């Protein structure tokens, strides 16, 4: 039976606000999980189950991808649409698939990530003899997953015009009992990564398992003085510097940089994100100069490049930046030797590095501090203990 698929990215309910199902301006479905975007993982899964023709319709363009995945992206039938046009374009795509000879069309809105078997869903659809069958969880809540008979264009049009919330006739239901992650917030993205690392969901990481539970992509650079504790993932072209600690299920995606002495604990660092030296990033999702603290459930914008920065998505600009910093290294050291008051660097050995205050703070705040205060950071070790503590 010829089954085709339409994948919709966006179209969240307006009452959830513009930030729903996205983080740092990018839909969660387009973010990487263990080195591969969620969308590509779903496409791979559908193709492995025999669905060849897949249309992807998105309100946002695909963010820059790591080299190997770029080819897979180009092979996708991708359409970027203006805001508000998502379901109208989906309706046209459904007509195209029907005209091309499809017997059934699978519609997924990302939205959530589900580990489902197309065969099982299709069988339920055929057995139920409904025009539209929707997947629901054990509580009857919709999962944004529909199987539509291609001959039922009016039902499909009605469904799309009601933003997948309402069916024209009574629809069939398929109770899905497998793994489902709603991907409603960055917290869910982190949960998906942890589930993958703990192998609760079979998402293959893009890398080799160097030690039990530690996956490192071949092109990642990890300093030999860095510590990585399983389970963890280091993506392609990521750079983990000396005395950095990656622990408790942390994920460093491609082209991310973790500077000297920084501790990443139970956190995900998204692609092209640079975390400054001597910091503690714990229980968080960090990327695009934004940090979501999962324990406090607060998202903060970090505009200081000494704490968090982004590296260029273009290889040529990155190379230019590296060359510029290399050329400026000696003059900068010379200048510092002449004029700088503090030479404190982040220790490069563990555990001293993990306990030192961030060297991102070593630069003076810029106000006229008194002379006696200028030697402050090094002498701060007079950490006071109070009698009643």
């Amino acid at each position, binding site marked *: 039976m010829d089954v085709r698929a339409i994948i919709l990215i966006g179209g969240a309910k307006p009452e959830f606000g513009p930030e729903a199902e996205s983080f740092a301006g990018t839909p969660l479905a387009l973010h990487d999980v263990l080195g591969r975007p969620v969308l590509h993982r779903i496409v791979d899964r559908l193709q492995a189950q025999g669905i060849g023709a897949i249309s992807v319709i998105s309100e946002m363009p695909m963010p820059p991808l790591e080299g190997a995945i770029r080819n897979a992206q180009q092979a996708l039938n991708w359409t970027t649409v203006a805001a508000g046009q998502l379901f109208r374009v989906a309706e046209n795509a459904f007509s195209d698939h029907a005209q091309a000879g499809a017997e059934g069309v699978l519609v997924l809105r990302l939205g959530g990530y589900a580990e489902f078997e197309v065969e099982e869903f299709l069988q339920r659809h055929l057995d139920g003899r409904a025009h539209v069958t929707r997947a629901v969880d054990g509580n009857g809540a919709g999962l944004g997953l529909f199987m539509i008979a291609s001959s039922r264009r009016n039902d499909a049009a009605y469904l799309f015009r009601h933003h997948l919330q309402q069916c024209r006739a009574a629809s069939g239901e398929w109770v899905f009992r497998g793994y489902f992650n709603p991907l409603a917030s960055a917290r869910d993205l982190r949960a998906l990564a942890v589930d993958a690392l703990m192998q609760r969901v079979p998402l293959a990481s893009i890398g080799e398992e160097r030690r039990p539970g530690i996956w490192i992509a071949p092109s990642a650079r990890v300093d030999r003085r860095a510590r990585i504790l399983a389970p963890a993932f280091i993506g392609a072209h990521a750079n983990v510097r000396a005395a950095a600690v990656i622990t408790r299920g942390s994920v460093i995606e491609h082209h991310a940089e973790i500077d000297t002495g920084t501790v990443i604990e139970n956190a995900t660092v998204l692609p092209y994100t640079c975390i400054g030296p001597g910091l503690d990033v714990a229980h968080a999702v960090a990327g695009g100069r934004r940090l979501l603290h999962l324990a406090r459930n607060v998202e903060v914008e970090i505009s200081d490049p000494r704490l968090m920065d982004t590296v260029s998505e273009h290889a040529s600009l990155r190379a230019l930046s590296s060359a510029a910093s290399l050329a400026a290294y000696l003059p900068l050291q010379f200048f510092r030797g002449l004029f700088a008051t503090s030479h404190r660097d982040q220790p490069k050995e563990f555990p001293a590095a993990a306990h030192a*205050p961030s060297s991102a703070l070593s630069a003076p705040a810029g106000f006229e501090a008194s002379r006696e*205060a200028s030697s402050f950071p090094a002498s701060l070790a007079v950490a006071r203990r109070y009698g009643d503590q």
Partner: protein
Amino acid sequence: METNRPVVVKRIPERLNLKQARAFCREMDPILNSDRPQIVFDCSQVKQVDAAGVEMLLQCLSHVIRRDGDLKLAALSPQMAIILEMTRTERLFEIYESSSDAVLSFSRFLPAHLKQPAVFTMPAIPQLAPPRAAASNSAEGAAPADLAA
């Protein structure tokens, strides 16, 4: 051990970047340079803080410690708490839920060794007389120098 010195409560601005930190420090300069300053920074309004802001807090703490005073933080906004935690500086400050708690903490300060009844057990050295303060002196309100006498 109560103190009659005033406690200054200062609200930190919403954005604490380099420019704001400079202005804030200029404003705080007379207080920081007073004798044994007791300061509470109310951080409830802080929405954005960068490394320069944290540096400014550390500089203020340094100033105050050198003048034998104290600087406490109160009512940390979630954003401020995250940045302090991220830069490993939250452990350097006393942090209170509210400004009033922080202010009260100055008058309730009592070192642990002064809380206990002054049972002074001197080593049995024959040439020293037993401490006369041991039985009569209450520890509260007594300075360490008194106890040593």
